[in-house]
């Protein structure tokens, strides 16, 4: 089992439009490739925090089983004034792997040879992005949590993209995204986050259709908000 949600309630905080998850119940088994599809304000971040144990639910229980990664390619934990070496040493000690081997693997997989010893804030964004993926890909996780799949597509990153695709095909995957195409490429099933519910689909295409149907609804809500704001302003002017 990767993760098991039992009667989970959660209200997102620090967002303009809070999402309230009510009574979430699902269980994801080892080795599964599952997508969580949702738009920006659908509460995807809150759900990922619950899966990683970075936050607690308001009610209910979240149980975690296999060795899962952090949300890749998140770079929030990386000290930008440090080098690739400092970054790999930190993770090597945290995950108890040999620092030298891990460093060489990350540099090789990410194609980062020319940036060794360089401060990360002096490296191009593409290199930092490759580093963020490689840091996770070179650790022995049973399941990856991905929030982005931008390693695929670019010609110069083709080798790296192929490596990531191979790694993902051999391990479990939880993909949190608003991109239906990425879910279609990497996942067998999907949950669509809609109005605080996680709707399960064993057919990813059907899940994407559901996701597309949410977009007009969100647009309506945006328009309604604008009208309310306008009305409010008119009233204030009087």
């Amino acid at each position, binding site marked *: 089992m990767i993760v098991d949600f039992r009667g989970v309630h959660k209200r997102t*905080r620090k967002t303009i439009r809070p999402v309230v998850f009510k009574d979430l119940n699902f269980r994801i088994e080892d080795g599964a490739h599952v997508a969580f599809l949702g738009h920006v304000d659908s509460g995807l971040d809150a759900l990922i*925090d619950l899966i990683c144990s*970075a936050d*607690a639910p308001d009610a209910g229980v979240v149980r975690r089983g296999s060795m899962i990664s*952090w949300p890749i390619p998140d770079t929030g934990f990386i*000290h930008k004034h440090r080098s690739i070496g400092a970054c790999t040493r*930190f*993770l090597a000690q945290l995950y108890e792997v040999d620092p030298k081997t891990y460093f060489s693997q990350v540099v090789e997989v990410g194609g980062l040879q020319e940036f060794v010893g360089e401060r990360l804030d002096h490296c191009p964004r593409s290199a930092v992005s490759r580093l963020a993926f490689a840091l996770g890909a070179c650790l022995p996780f049973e399941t990856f949590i991905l929030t982005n799949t931008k390693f695929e597509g670019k010609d110069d990153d083709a080798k790296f993209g192929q490596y990531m695709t191979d790694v993902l095909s051999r391990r479990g995957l939880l993909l949190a995204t608003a991109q239906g195409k990425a879910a279609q490429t990497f996942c067998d099933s999907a949950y669509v986050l809609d109005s605080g519910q996680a709707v399960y689909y064993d057919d990813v295409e059907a899940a994407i259709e559901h996701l597309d149907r949410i977009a007009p609804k969100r647009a309506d809500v945006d328009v309604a908000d604008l009208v309310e704001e306008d009305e409010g302003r008119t009233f204030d002017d009087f």
Partner: protein
Amino acid sequence: MLSELRTQFNIIGALTVYDLQGQMKKYNYGYAWVILEPMMFIAFIRLARQFFSPLAPPNDMPPLTFYTLGIIPLFLYMDVMKEVYAAAGTSSKLLQFPRVTPVDVAISCGLSSFCIYFVLFWIFVLPLSIYEGAWPPKNPLGVMETLLALWVFSVALGFVCSAPFRVFPPTSQFIAYTNRAIRVIAGMFFVITMIPTTFWPYLTWNPLLHLNEFMRDSWFSSYTSPIADAGYVAECTLGLLVLGLSLERFMRRVPYT
């Protein structure tokens, strides 16, 4: 069991180094403030002593070493405690690593703070005590034990404060004000023999005063503290540690505000 313990130490070690590397990166002058702040404090109290003779240390204790032994450990206490309650009471990016818990983050923040102030302590005390002829300390082991006891006490109190801070962040203001008051009555610039005995029962409830007394007792051969009580400090620390860790465990069920 042993391998789990080793893993725990590895995690705390990695997070401590990570925290030290990130400390004050937002300031161009790096660690300068850590050195400047106590330096200004010591200079201020040394100057104040020129005008207020009751501040003069008794028993021929040299003044600069005397004040430094009082000030830096209290800075250590305040910083460690603040780091621990802030780390345990707020959401951190590091918690997205599933094997990292709030206790790990809090302990490592406290540990990195201890490292900084431990080094700072010797940077200040070593030359000053040599200059004033107060070197070597009477009981070096006692000095080290006092610093370690101070760290454990600060971590324990930090965990206790993390619970109210997590549900009501403005608590930090209250803690800061209380700490300032406690700092003054904790023997920063006096030893208990400078205070009339009628006030002793009111002052000796404070475990920090006991620790400061231990520090001066361990350093100066001319001073023996009449009140320093290791048992009392140990009881307070143990009580706070049990309470703090229990509260932290309970608060893990509470979402971050």
